[in-house]
């Protein structure tokens, strides 16, 4: 189906199902229960899940297949965002041209950066990409302020009147898709549950499904095979008459364009860009997402992105009062004790939980969350790992 093998097609269907039904899946708890704090089915976070999913999928095409660890990928996301917002400010508030602009700008920048950085490999490549990203960040924050807005970034203002728009005087333009506002939502109230279906989310979700589909095609294609061959043995690659560098460069540019798409979608969903989107910690974040989920697997990066964004947005919002409410049914002493124990890990301590999670995953699940899932599935099936699984897992990227 769609040029995919059965297993891959099933995976695509599962991902499509999860993505399209996300408003239900992410809001499992009734609104009035204390657990509602853990609901993630509101538009902004759902959008972030899929957007960072795209970013991580793209990063994985480079890192997972070729083994080249870019430590400056956030620069492409940021530059894509700047491209998109300028498109909206000047040309049209429609998100389609803005997103295309983001992909193109990021692609061109990736081509230039990749052309230079791919002369080196290993950690030397990582540091070169880091250097380019940090320079982009530092310049966007300071001397490029006229173009980037500096610290305060760029937003659409009432004084912006794009070429193709019919805004009234003083009206602040909004991102739309042929007139449909990205923030338009349809809310479904079932008993104590409330589900939000947001236009922007579904556009981003479709973009992610398309990206995911393309990623499967790349992974399974001879081109993907070439990239894995580069990771496996560059010497043999050269002595087989293949030039590794343009192959890697192509992967780098594709990966940069994925980042640009993510950046463009971020602007489409939320019309604002700031330079810290390009800071090295943002680049580090996508590395962490990919490794956390499972490098070289198809679904891993999406899971990793979801896990990190969930913690950042849900865990950080739990404060002491919320904890006290949760444990209010306990005797006072026990309640206070529990709150005291848990409090350092939530709210302002969410970084601590994140750090501990990384360590646990790397120590016990070197294959990331995907490996965790596989182990659970295997345990459920009651089957022991047979020998065949070992080499196969690394030959063919697992789902």
């Amino acid at each position: 189906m769609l040029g995919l093998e059965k297993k891959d097609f099933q995976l695509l269907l599962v991902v499509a199902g999860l993505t399209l039904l996300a408003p239900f899946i992410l809001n499992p708890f009734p609104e009035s229960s204390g657990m509602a704090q853990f609901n993630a089915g509101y538009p902004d976070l759902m959008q972030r899940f899929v957007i960072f999913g795209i970013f991580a999928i793209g990063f994985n095409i480079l890192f997972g297949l070729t083994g080249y660890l870019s430590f400056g990928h956030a620069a492409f996301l940021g530059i894509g965002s700047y491209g998109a917002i300028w498109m909206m400010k000047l040309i049209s508030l429609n998100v389609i041209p803005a997103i295309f602009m983001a992909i193109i700008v990021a692609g061109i920048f990736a081509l230039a950066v990749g052309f230079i950085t791919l002369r080196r490999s290993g950690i030397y490549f990582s540091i070169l990409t880091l250097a380019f990203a940090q320079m982009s960040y530092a310049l966007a924050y300071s001397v490029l302020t006229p173009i980037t807005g500096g610290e305060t970034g760029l937003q659409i203002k009432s004084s912006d009147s794009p070429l193709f728009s019919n805004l009234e005087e003083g009206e602040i333009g909004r991102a739309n898709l042929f007139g449909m506002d990205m923030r338009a939502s349809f809310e479904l109230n079932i008993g104590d549950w409330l589900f939000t279906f947001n236009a922007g989310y579904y556009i981003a979700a479709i973009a992610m499904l398309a990206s995911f589909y393309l990623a499967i095609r790349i992974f399974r294609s001879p081109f993907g095979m070439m990239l894995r061959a580069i990771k496996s043995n560059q010497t043999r690659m050269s002595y087989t008459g293949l030039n590794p560098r343009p192959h890697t460069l192509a992967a780098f540019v594709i990966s940069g364009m994925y980042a640009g798409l993510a950046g463009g979608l971020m602007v489409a969903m939320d019309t604002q860009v700031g330079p810290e989107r390009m800071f090295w910690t943002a680049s580090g974040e996508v590395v962490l997402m990919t490794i956390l989920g499972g490098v070289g697997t198809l679904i891993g990066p999406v899971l990793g992105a979801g896990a990190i964004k969930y913690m950042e947005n849900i865990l950080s919002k739990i404060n002491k009062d919320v904890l006290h409410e949760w444990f209010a049914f306990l005797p006072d002493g026990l309640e206070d004790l529990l709150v005291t124990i848990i409090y350092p890990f939530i709210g302002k301590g969410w970084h601590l939980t994140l750090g501990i999670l990384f360590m646990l995953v790397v120590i016990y699940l070197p294959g990331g969350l995907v490996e965790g899932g596989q182990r659970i599935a295997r345990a459920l099936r009651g089957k022991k790992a047979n020998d065949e699984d070992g080499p196969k897992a690394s030959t063919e990227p697992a789902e």
Partner: protein
Amino acid sequence: MEAIILQILNGLDKGSAYALIALGLTLIFGTLGVVNFAHGALFMIGAFCAVTLSRILTLSHTIIDETKTDFLGNPAKVEVPYVHDIFGVATGDAIIDWAVPLSILFAVPVMMAVGYIMERGLIKHFYTRPHADQILVTFGLAIVLQEVIKYFYGANPIPTPAPQAFTGSFDFGAALGFDPNLIIYPYWRIIYFVFAAVIIGAVFAFLQYTTFGMVVRAGMADRETVGLLGINIDRRFTIMFGLAAAVAGLAGVMYTPINSPNYHMGMDFLVLSFVVVVVGGMGSLPGAVLAGFMLGILESFASMREVLAILPGLNQIIIYLVAILILLTRPRGLMGRKGVMED
């Protein structure tokens, strides 16, 4: 001329901080083959050793002073450090004043212990794992360490001044025959530079002239062979990790009077020190030191307003720009060996 001499001094000073951290990173990478993203955190913990010691020295009991009032109009509580009770006010104040230098004695065993626990408890299990795993697990550890420090000490920088005797600055200009006040340099920064030079020299001498060091150097070059010779290289590597942790920690202790320590100072230094290590060439100790000083000096020159007038924003990117240029002309950094972390 004066401006240039001054910036060379600045560069040496900055460079010694970079070189010290890069040296520790390279020691760990070269001996253990581990990319330690938690190295910045060790630097930070070192700095907090100084904070902790000065907190210990200023441990106080409160007495109510009826003659004064606090901001709410209640009788004021006055904190009296125990050292005042024990040694008297003058000696007690002198001890508190000397908290930072005293912290060196305090930090060495603490850092060795931290290094030992880290190596035995965590790093040991990652020798054979891919570099990406090492980076992630040590990065996770760095986050955990800095959050723990933040939990106990807060996010705000904590002033940790040098002893009174070292405040003020030395007038190089007057000494060299220029007009006074043109080339001045703080005493503590001069001490920091000398300290860094001594540490760097000591590490090199240790590796060069002791049997232990020779074995470790051999292990750096070819771990398997040394293992085959029946030498317990692992135990030595543990000691090396402790040593590297101590170097990072001491660099942190001595840095506290220069900039008030805060919980994220390690992260701030981490990226820069990695750039330094890579520019120097992965695994090369002299390379790390050389690159540290070189980037320190270049950074200082790029911050001169005469330079910025021509190239605005150069100070923002100089280190990265130089790193790119060096890596493009010298594939493995200044003194890197072939095949180290190239795949």
